[in-house]
């Protein structure tokens, strides 16, 4: 099987190999990254990537020695390296746990200690000679991936993919609510151990691509990007895999055209670029989406505030059929002619206002009347509620009522009316309008 796969791969160009590697990276790192981000274990992932490093170096040494002794054909045997890496990773995780059980050290310090000491161990091993290809582990070697590396990556990625697919539900429950997982009878310890092993594999794959330090970039950034894009877990996994592949392919192509230098950093920066794009443009959670939502709402609130003021003027003058003068409107809104015109245009544009007498008199349309009556009713009901039930002080009421009145839905209004006993007037004695009643003042 090995030989077939090997034969198939060795025929391909470097670029194709890199592209296939990107797929492997996406599958392994993208999938596991989703869990890491949701479990808030980014530092744990970071620790694993540093802890695995000496394992990989040792694996290179061991593999080379085995090759010289004739036990294996390849000096860079992927199974040997993966095995050593796994041992190191699991060892690192175990040390963290032991430290947790035997000392007062907090988790962050434990992870930091293991991370740095193990990594130092890996670097120290270089003192005994630098096996060929180990540099690739430090900086990643997307540009120079060969068939052997790819076999390792594909194998690990396949295992990760299959395992996550088979155990997706238990893994999700354990990640989200460990207590509930116990409740359901899941073997939590085994699942957590399995997760650590899978994560180690994903780390090894990512290391081949971008190097030790930037493994976190591949684990976390695409998954975080996915998190911004969707609220559903399966989709988040898909997006995460997709973004990882995109970053990897993009980074490899880009770095190939820039320089000879390793593709790792460029891939990481591509992942960040995707994140930035999502940060700004993600539907619903992105900056732009939130800005538009806020803006839409701000406009609505402003429109309703203007209508409210027009209503008040109308009310004061006894709801004259000819409507309100622009001058009275300016006075009520405390605006100059220019500002007033802007607001009036906005209302006209929304179909709430009609201008008569060459623009000098303002008359509400049927729709405008309905909106005005509704918002004034909300405002006065809310004021009444605050004054009566919540014992509000007189000088507070206006500020808060200003916001809430725009957000009260019909259901909340009905509850308010019921609780207040269907009042007719507000705390200031003004009547509470009934928007459902026929308009007192209309166009015609």
């Amino acid at each position, binding site marked *: 099987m090995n030989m077939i796969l090997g034969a198939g791969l060795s025929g391909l160009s470097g670029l194709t190999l890199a592209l296939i590697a990107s797929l492997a990276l996406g599958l392994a790192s993208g999938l596991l990254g989703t869990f890491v*981000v949701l479990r*808030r*274990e*980014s*530092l744990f992932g*970071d620790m694993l990537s*540093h802890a695995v490093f000496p394992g990989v170096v040792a694996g290179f040494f061991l593999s080379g020695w085995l090759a010289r002794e004739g036990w294996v054909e390849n000096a860079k045997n992927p199974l040997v390296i993966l095995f050593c890496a796994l041992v190191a990773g699991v060892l690192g995780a175990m040390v963290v746990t032991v*430290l947790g059980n*035997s*000392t*007062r*050290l*907090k*988790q*962050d*310090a434990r*992870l*930091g*200690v293991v*991370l*740095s*000491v193990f*990594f*130092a*161990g*890996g*670097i*120290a091993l*270089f*003192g*005994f*000679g630098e096996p060929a290809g180990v540099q690739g582990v*430090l*900086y990643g070697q997307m540009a120079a991936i060969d068939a052997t590396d790819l076999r390792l990556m594909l194998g690990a990625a396949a295992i990760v993919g299959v395992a996550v697919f088979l155990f997706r539900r238990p893994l999700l429950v354990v990640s989200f609510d460990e207590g509930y997982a116990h409740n359901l009878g899941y073997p939590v310890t085994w699942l957590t151990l399995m997760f650590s092993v899978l994560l180690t594999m994903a780390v090894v794959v990512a290391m081949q691509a971008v190097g*030790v*330090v*930037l493994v*976190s*970039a591949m*684990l*976390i*950034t695409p*998954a*975080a990007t996915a*998190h*911004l894009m969707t609220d559903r877990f399966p989709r988040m996994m898909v997006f995460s895999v997709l973004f990882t592949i995109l970053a990897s392919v993009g980074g490899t192509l880009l770095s190939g055209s*820039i*320089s000879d*230098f*390793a593709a*790792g*950093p*460029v891939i*990481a*920066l591509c992942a*960040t670029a995707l*994140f930035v794009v999502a*940060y700004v443009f993600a539907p619903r*959670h992105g*900056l732009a989406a939130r800005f538009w939502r806020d803006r839409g709402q701000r406009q609505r609130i402003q429109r309703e505030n203007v209508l409210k003021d027009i209503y008040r003027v109308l009310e004061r003058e006894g709801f004259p059929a000819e409507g309100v003068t622009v001058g009275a409107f300016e006075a009520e809104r405390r605006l100059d002619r220019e500002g007033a015109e802007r607001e009036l245009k906005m209302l006209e544009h929304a179909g709430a206002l009609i201008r008569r007498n060459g623009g000098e008199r303002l008359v509400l349309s049927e729709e405008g009347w309905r909106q005005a009556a509704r918002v004034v009713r909300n405002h006065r009901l809310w004021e009444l509620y605050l004054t009566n039930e919540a014992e509000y002080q007189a000088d507070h009421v206006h500020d808060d009522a200003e916001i809430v009145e725009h957000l009260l839905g019909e259901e909340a209004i009905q509850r308010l009316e019921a609780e207040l006993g269907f009042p007719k007037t507000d705390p200031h004695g003004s009547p509470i309008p009934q928007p459902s009643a026929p308009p007192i003042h209309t166009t015609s």
Partner: protein
Amino acid sequence: MDLLAATDIIIPTKLLVWFGLACFFTALGCSQVGTFLVMRKMSLVGDAISHSVLPGIVLAFLVVGTLDSPWLLIGAGLSGVLATLLIELIHYRSRIKQDAAIGISFTSLFALGVLLIGLKAGKVDLDPDCVIFGQVEYLQGYPRVEWWGLEFPRPLVSFAVVGVSATVVVAVLYRILLVSSFDPSLAASYGYFPAVVQLVLMGLTSFVVVSAFQAVGAILVIALLILPGATAYLCANRLPMILLLAGVHALLSSVGGVWLALSLGINTGAAVVLAGGGLFTLAWLFGPVDGVVVRLWMRRRAGEGREPVSACE
């Protein structure tokens, strides 16, 4: 690697002293600042800062052309501030949690730094390996200064300045740091505003990280920051003693590590960290407060019916 031959090598005392002092001063500053990072459960942030300052340092280096310049500190500081801003921006303005925000921020900045080095490597004398592995060995190449009749490479002076001044600052601000780390509300009530203290601590971290970079390389800086504090935490019950022991750890791991490096021919930075790890293991086993062996012994004494005495009195 023929170990027998290794032990026969006479370690040049001059190198031992130079490298040892360089590592010691660096480790000293880091140990003092880093102890507070550990106390505040901010080891991860320390790791992030240590990676995030890389682009600032590289840019400063590209401008001034030498590693022996205060501009590197400024570059590092700005880079560190940028990192903190990015983390805030991501964490507070979106649903991304803090740990992921830190991860995104430092990996991007670090990648940027490595890319800058890679692009400019040909034009300037900055080897990416130096950044990863540290370059205490390169001290030999620098011009010398004379003190008390002895010769030292010039960068050693800046290491000393950074290390000593960081220690002094921590000592002066001790009370503020103590109260803010232990009880932020009380600190706020005394006027030591948590946000300000945090900023100062980040600044101090960026400050000591620059030397640490040159001594042990980007990735191991975290070790210099937290190993001393973590080790001391297992050995003492009061913060002043912990700070002192952290300093001792810095000394022992530096000297021991340099000696190891010179005898075995391994990377200096790695050796210092491994020596530190060795000390940590000793503390883990025998630390008077939390040591495994000590605890087992206590339990045995209690089991024998004697009055269990707290190890902390």
